[in-house]
């Protein structure tokens, strides 16, 4: 009986692009792992990855990952974790215990919620949640306990309010709320004394808390973005003159009184102004 010949050529050519990168990386013990745009859908396609504890940066942008396994937290030396443009709907809580994680990019995913206790990161400095489906009740109670946070990107989500707890983010320098449905800001935002970038474009804001005037938003090193809101005339007039005029105006007695009266009367907020129904993050 003749058997069919068995090939002895290695199956290298059939190996996925991701596997190849992992193998090469293991050979040279490269701590920075680039797996962007490798057509990966699950972590099973990256065998051995969760044991490569020497890795400090893991970039998985532009893949099709839906599920993040809790075992990812084994990578205890990870400082930068980038999941930008995947299809993640849920995260494991274990992520928050990663001791050295400083930069976490979850932009362009399908998050409707964050796990309870998510704010427990001991060293997180930059958190990018741009372009998900997060709203007021998506954030766990300890979200604003991340004192080490320098930059918080929440643009392109569905928030209507920012909690007063934002004041706990004492080191925050960058806060992006672009194109949410924000109807008002808490006065506590005035306690973020290190803030030097504030993006408020495309929300439903009409008025600003006088305490915002405490921030140094008119300085050379600061950026204040405000377009696409339905500001009351008085604020609109000041913005036309410049941000420094607005900041001075917010500090004035005149404005305090205007604000007080406005808040007492509480006119209904303007309707949403950005059509986000076509966002790909909406796909379920």
């Amino acid at each position: 009986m003749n058997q069919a010949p068995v090939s002895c050529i290695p199956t290298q050519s059939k190996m996925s692009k991701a596997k190849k990168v992992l193998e090469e990386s293991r050979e040279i013990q490269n701590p920075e792992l680039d797996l962007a745009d490798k057509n990966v859908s699950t972590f099973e396609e990256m065998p051995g990855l969760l044991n490569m504890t020497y890795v400090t940066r893991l970039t998985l942008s532009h893949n099709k990952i839906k599920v993040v396994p809790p075992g990812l937290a084994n990578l205890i030396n990870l400082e930068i974790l980038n999941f930008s443009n995947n299809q993640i709907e849920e995260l494991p809580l274990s992520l928050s215990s990663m001791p050295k994680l400083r930069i976490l990019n979850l932009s362009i995913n399908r998050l409707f919620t964050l796990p309870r206790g998510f704010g427990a990161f001991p060293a997180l400095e930059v958190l990018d949640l741009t372009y998900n489906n997060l709203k007021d009740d998506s954030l766990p109670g300890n979200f604003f306990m991340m004192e080490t946070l320098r930059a918080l990107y929440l643009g392109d989500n569905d928030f209507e309010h920012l909690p007063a707890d934002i004041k706990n983010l004492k080191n925050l320098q960058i806060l992006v709320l672009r194109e949410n449905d924000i109807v008002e800001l808490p006065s506590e935002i005035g306690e973020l004394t290190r803030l030097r970038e504030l993006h408020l474009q495309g929300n439903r804001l009409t008025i600003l808390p006088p305490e915002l005037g405490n921030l140094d938003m008119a300085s050379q090193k600061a950026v204040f973005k405000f377009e696409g809101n339905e500001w009351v005339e008085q604020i609109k007039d000041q913005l036309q003159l410049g941000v420094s005029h607005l900041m001075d105006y917010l500090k004035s007695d005149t404005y305090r009184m205007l604000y007080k009266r406005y808040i007492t009367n509480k006119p209904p907020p303007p309707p949403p102004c950005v059509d986000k129904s076509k966002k790909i993050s909406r796909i379920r």
Partner: protein
Amino acid sequence: MWNIKDKSPDVPVMGDFKDGKLFLRRKHQHDGSYKKFEDIDYSPVEISKPEVVGEKNVTKWITNMSRDNMACARCGDGFGAQEKIVNSTGQLWHQQCFVCAQCFQEFPNGIFYEYDGRKYCEHDFQVLFAPCCNKCNSFIIGRVIKAMNASWHPEHFLCQMCDMELAETGFIKNGGRALCHECNAKIKAQGLGKYVCHKCHSLIDDQPLKFRGEMYHPYHFNCTACGVELDGNAREVRNRSGFAKNDMNELYCLRCHDKMGIPICGACRRPIEERVVTALGKHWHVEHFVCAKCEKPFLGHRHYEKKGLAYCETHYHQLFGNLCHVCNQVIGGDVFTALNKAWCVHHFACSVCDQKMNQKTKFYECDLKPVCKKCYEKFPNELRRRLRRQHEATPKKAGTPV
């Protein structure tokens, strides 16, 4: 699509207007612009002469008087024999004509406020005229303290050092702060480089003695160990556990103190009883280990050392370079600056795929983060369309490569 139409009315809606006429009347009365409400001129009043804005009144009725030749101040008609007549500041009204100038309703419980010859119900008076307390931000009815360019409830105008009420005692303006007389004296003493003794309240001319956070003439105390009367060289020592922090401190003369062996602060040369900071090869009081530029204590925050001096992050950054947006470290070599940020050579990369970029790389911008061309093209079409529109709407700063 952006939808940037301003829908706020010319006159902000104040209160609950159901009647179109009311709205018109308001417009006329106040020139139709909101500003006018703010411009109401309360004449400045000295603190010794408190002003009462809008006297609170209670409706008075006339019962047994001749009603001939009497007419209602509003409608001009006479009064019926049994009719109730309202009497206020010499004028008479039908009950139904005696109403708030704003809402035309009768005054709840007969309480109204007069201002500028008009009468208002409490609600409308507050909304229209009552000044706002600079401390608690609520309306002030009754006595208003006008001081330091703001209005205050009498119980909310306080000494900015000791929180004592100033409405009765008056205040002294010192360096933009309102102070009570005692605190002002303290500041004055400090200006002379001197202190006021916490025990006898007189100026301390010689070296003062600090004890439990206050300054004293040393001669008010004796050494805990040997009992000798103390001088300015005496030392405060924390030595007994189990008590509250301030109750643990005791005073010793220099001789008794030196027998105890305690680390000395590199700044003030005084002993360190509480937490010791060790840095730059010396010991420091927590509050004496400060930035060489701004002299603010680090209090456990990160500091940067350079040539034997310590700096806070801000000032190290300001004096010696930028912090990298990714590693948050001071940038030693070449610096990339763009999008209101700086990067070290190792970390200037696309924010989406982490691929390194250089001076020549063209990149896009999203929320002031750099995005390489390849990544930008992978963004959802819908997002790219919005970002593009936003870019067209925003005036571009020179030097932002796109």
